[in-house]
């Protein structure tokens, strides 16, 4: 079933037309990858789903993005948007833990949303760290600063921080681009594990990564979604010439 649908979406940064007539459907509890050359609008598209583009001035958006059938761009109050962002979490390209302890990083959202405290909070933190496979390594040093962790651990921590607020959808913008190949593979395994419970949208530069772990793939070029479909089809039997050029490495 589609959890997110995008209909005829256009986005302008001032006069620059960054997303052009995008229409797509994102299936629940699957990994959807978005690939394409640098600057084609992947991050911009991803940031549509949790309305992070709202923070940018001079931006104009037309079209629809529906989560569970409700157009998220009809939301008017900041409260509604904040609530949307709890449902649609985001992991960024560079691991960006707060300069707080490991525990406080994971607890951050819950504490502020006043959703849990005391024992309940501890349990959620534990469950989140377990879900990203950090618990066994770090359970005795929850009070140390998160900045002491390796980059891979930091990125896992950032994922745990998102999981703790119990999202339905997780947006990941090139989550492995600052990691080495081994760490990358382990994060990929984590994403496969996470899709049992969450819908995952993954922006990646790395075509092998998209091919390895995603169920659906969209290929973007210059703001257009050129082709969108099952990953196996896109990579073995693409319809569009641009897609062929890109995945065979003939583009750029």
């Amino acid at each position, binding site marked *: 079933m589609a959890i997110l649908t995008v209909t005829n979406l256009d986005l302008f940064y001032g006069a620059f037309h960054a997303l052009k007539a995008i229409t797509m459907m994102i299936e629940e509890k699957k990994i959807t990858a978005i690939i394409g050359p640098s600057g084609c609008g992947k991050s911009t598209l991803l940031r549509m789903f949790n309305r*992070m583009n709202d*923070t940018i001035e001079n931006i104009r958006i037309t079209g629809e993005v529906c989560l569970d059938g409700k157009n998220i761009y009809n939301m008017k109050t900041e409260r509604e948007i904040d609530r*949307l*962002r709890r449902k649609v*979490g985001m992991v960024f390209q560079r691991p960006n833990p707060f300069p707080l302890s490991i525990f406080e990083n994971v607890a951050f959202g819950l504490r502020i*949303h006043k959703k849990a405290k005391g024992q309940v909070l501890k349990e959620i933190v534990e469950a989140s760290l377990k879900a990203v496979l950090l618990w066994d390594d770090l359970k005795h040093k929850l009070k140390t600063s998160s900045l002491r962790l390796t980059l891979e651990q930091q990125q896992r921590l950032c994922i745990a921080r998102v999981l703790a607020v119990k999202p339905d959808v997780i947006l990941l913008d090139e989550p492995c681009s600052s990691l080495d190949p081994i760490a990358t593979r382990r994060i990929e395994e984590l994403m496969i594990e996470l899709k049992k419970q969450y819908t995952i949208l993954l922006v990646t530069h790395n075509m092998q990564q998209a091919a390895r772990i995603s169920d659906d793939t969209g290929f973007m070029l210059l703001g257009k979604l050129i082709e969108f479909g099952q990953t196996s089809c896109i990579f073995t039997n693409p319809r569009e010439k641009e897609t062929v050029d890109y995945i065979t490495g003939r583009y750029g």
Partner: protein
Amino acid sequence: MSPRITQKIAFSLLFLVSLVVFIPVLFIIGILVSKGAAALTWEFIFSMPKDGMRGGGILPAIVGTLLIVLCSISIALPVGILAAVYLNEYAKDNLLTRIIQLSIVNLAGVPSIIYGLFGLAFFVIMLNLGVSVIAGALTLAIMELPSIITTTRNSLNNVPASFREVSLSLGVSRWQTIRRVVLPNALPGIMTGAILSIARIAGETAPILFTAAAFYVPHLPHSLSEQVMALPYHLYVISTQIPNMPEKITYGTALILVLLVLILSFTVIILRIFFRKRYKW
């Protein structure tokens, strides 16, 4: 000339210049200590002036300056921080905002005696506060606002954009993001601004001349609506208005003023460390 030698010359020059900056500071402290240290006794710090201020202590002036500085900073700091937060995080870039920003820049350049006259006209006379601690503190607070706003804005801007982004992306509201992420991270910078302000306020004479300072008050203030003695003004008085003033009292008073500023600054630094610990930064 080889690049190596040019580099050597450049570095030596830079070293000399920093020495030139440093030497006057050493000199000032040296003079104050050598001429004033003899006056520093418990009696000097903790008793009232005697013999037409030629003897006894300077307690009222110390207390007066402390009161004025603390009042002023506790007015200016919250107002300045809130204004900076508004300008930085909320204000749209429109005509009003620009006018406000322009006035802040200009306020910073106004000579301090003008603030003194303004304080006299507005706080002392118009608001009928009289010559008092509170009138002086308000005057100094207004004088300090521009620099507090500017340093606060700089420290807010130094908080990495990614922190705000993450916080918002977790569904944390803009206000909570400012309160829980931006301000705690900016706090060390804001405190540094506060230290500089305190140091400046404590030594200012002109703004309190007509608004707070008294020539001679033989007792400690009972409330903020009384006029008080203040160290910088007292220093001016004893060095120019009173004949046969023992030199060590003048220099001792100056030394106390410098020490007071140092102590206040250290308090802020300690507070800063405390906050850092609390937020586990």
